[in-house]
């Protein structure tokens, strides 16, 4: 039996969320990411999320993964990573530099996480699970546009090129699986994508154990994200 995910925050947290949303000079910087009041207000019900919210949330995931005793070692690429990979490719997009400044060896991580923006209209999420040899793709709208084929192909190419560049040898993709996890909660794709990445970073195996949240939690999740971004730290999960 798993503990139930709450459908609302505590009353005092809700009050803080309201006051953050009303603060016209709100600004929070996490690592190299930043959320300002006009970004934050996108977490009000029904609004579209932008890259500032999504990438700051990723920075919070990175922070949490650095605390001793963190369940998984992770890397998070911001939402421009996949745009560059799909539009320009590894070489022209200079993606080899993306792990240079931060000196990240993605092959030593348990999982590499990244949000994907499709057509400036939809958010999805992907994970490269190094331990389980899986490329996982998550879309709250069930991939109606059929984007996953190209995504799996591009990510495989990325792994090969990054391995060649950093290790000087070919990457062995044998035994690697492409896993599309069909979820259909039909709404709130940006929140869904962030919470999917959060669950994976936390150590949950979404492929085998499924999600512990659903469409009914999205309004709580929006407020939780305001709360977490404002305090610059993720809350402990249920």
């Amino acid at each position: 039996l798993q503990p139930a995910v709450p459908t609302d925050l505590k009353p005092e947290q809700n009050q803080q969320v309201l006051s953050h949303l009303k603060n016209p000079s709100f600004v929070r910087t996490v690592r190299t990411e930043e959320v300002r009041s006009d970004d934050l207000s996108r977490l009000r019900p029904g609004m579209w999320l932008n890259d500032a919210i999504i990438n700051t949330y990723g920075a919070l995931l990175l922070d949490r993964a650095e605390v001793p005793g963190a369940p998984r070692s992770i890397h998070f690429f911001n939402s421009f990573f996949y745009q560059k990979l799909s539009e320009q490719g590894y070489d022209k997009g200079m993606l080899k530099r993306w792990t240079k400044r931060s000196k990240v060896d993605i092959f030593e991580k348990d999982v590499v996480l990244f949000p994907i923006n499709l057509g400036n209209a939809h958010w999805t999420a992907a994970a490269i699970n190094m331990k389980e040899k899986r490329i996982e793709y998550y879309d709250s709208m069930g991939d109606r546009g059929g984007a996953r084929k190209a995504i799996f192909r591009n990510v495989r190419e990325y792994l090969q090129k990054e391995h060649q560049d950093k290790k000087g040898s070919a990457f062995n993709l044998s035994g690697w699986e492409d896993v599309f996890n069909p979820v259909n909660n039909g709404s709130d794709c940006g929140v869904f994508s962030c919470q999917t990445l959060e669950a994976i970073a936390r150590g949950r195996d979404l492929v085998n154990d499924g999600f512990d949240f659903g469409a009914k939690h999205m309004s709580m999740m929006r407020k939780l994200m305001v709360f977490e971004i404002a305090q610059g730290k993720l809350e402990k999960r249920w």
Partner: protein
Amino acid sequence: MDSQLISSSGGTKVDELPSEDEAEDLKASNKLKLVIQRTNDGEKTEFILKMTTPFIKVFEAWSKRFHVSPRTQRFLFQGEKVLDQSTPKMMEWKAGRSYVIDNMIGQEGG
């Protein structure tokens, strides 16, 4: 105007090297060259910066030139977002060198 594109192999901070003369002039005046590469067509725009110039000044000038609002634009250095209030010094960049920042357009989705 195109910059001299000489890729550097090693190091984590240098993107491209200006010509020797230019590099010395820059170094003597404690400045560096910043190239912003536009996302849609790769067009390069060069700026000469002091070590302590906040990047917001460059981003605003760049945005004005291309008639866009700076709030809709993002600027990345080696995959990491460059914050408005950051400076070359804070990035641990060096005078006399040249650096490339990628311009991207802010994304949204629902």
